[in-house]
């Protein structure tokens, strides 16, 4: 049976693991709303669940807009059991969004792309000024 190396990757406002090993994800979203670009997204977390076989692994997470890399995280993980589950948290602060092009999350293991996920950027109208009496 072929095991997918990544079960999911979710964008959220905040994520943590409690002392009893349970995962908490607050504010899971699948699009970004902005009035204008360029804009700065103050904080987000990318939470993913990876299945890794025994051995050393090089894992790369990248957020891109077209060909431009907005943020990148690379880490190595050594697995000593036959198969391990790894929940990965990537916290990103002050992400600069340059255009209305969708953001693309790319996950690579050993340089091989295992996931691409698109996060659309949606333009919202400016809130109206309050009416003067």
């Amino acid at each position, binding site marked *: 049976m072929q095991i997918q190396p990544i079960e999911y990757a979710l964008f*959220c*406002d905040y994520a943590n693991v*409690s002392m009893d090993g*349970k*995962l908490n*994800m*607050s*504010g*899971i979203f699948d699009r970004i709303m902005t009035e204008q670009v360029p804009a700065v997204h103050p904080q987000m977390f990318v939470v993913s669940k990876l299945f890794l076989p025994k051995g050393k692994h090089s894992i790369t997470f990248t957020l891109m807009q077209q060909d431009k890399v907005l943020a990148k995280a690379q880490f190595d993980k050594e697995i000593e059991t036959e198969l391990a589950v790894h929940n990965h948290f990537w916290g990103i602060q002050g992400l600069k969004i340059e255009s209305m092009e969708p953001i693309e999350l790319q996950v690579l293991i050993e340089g091989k792309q295992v996931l691409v996920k698109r996060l659309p950027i949606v333009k919202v109208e400016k809130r109206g000024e309050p009416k003067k009496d």
Partner: protein
Amino acid sequence: MKTTIPFVHFCDHASMSTDGKLNLNGIFESLFAMEVPTKHPQMYVLTRLHLGKGEHTFMLTLQQEDKVLAKTSFEIAVTQKTQEQNHLWGVFDLELQSYDPLTLKVYENGDEIDSATLPIYRLPKPFKKPTKEN
């Protein structure tokens, strides 16, 4: 288009905020019990559905072997070409009869389309404090 389920989460609490964002608290992938039968006081099952245009009828069951412990049904009408939909199911006082794994089964129009399993582990009973008489 065939319905797909990108992910399922079991958690202590789940909610949707007014801005449409999803909150999942206490996601777990196994259950622990010192003895059976026992009651799990509260859990939420989040199912993310990727749906095509049309009307969909779903049934979710939580079962141990062939015994259905809880079930829910719902309908979704999709007017766009595709739609991603979160479904939250609150399950209270779930009676676990044995240490057999708990299985979530997802049915669409009576056909099983996906499943997810939660193993149940036996926890050792805590030692009793020695009393003065002992």
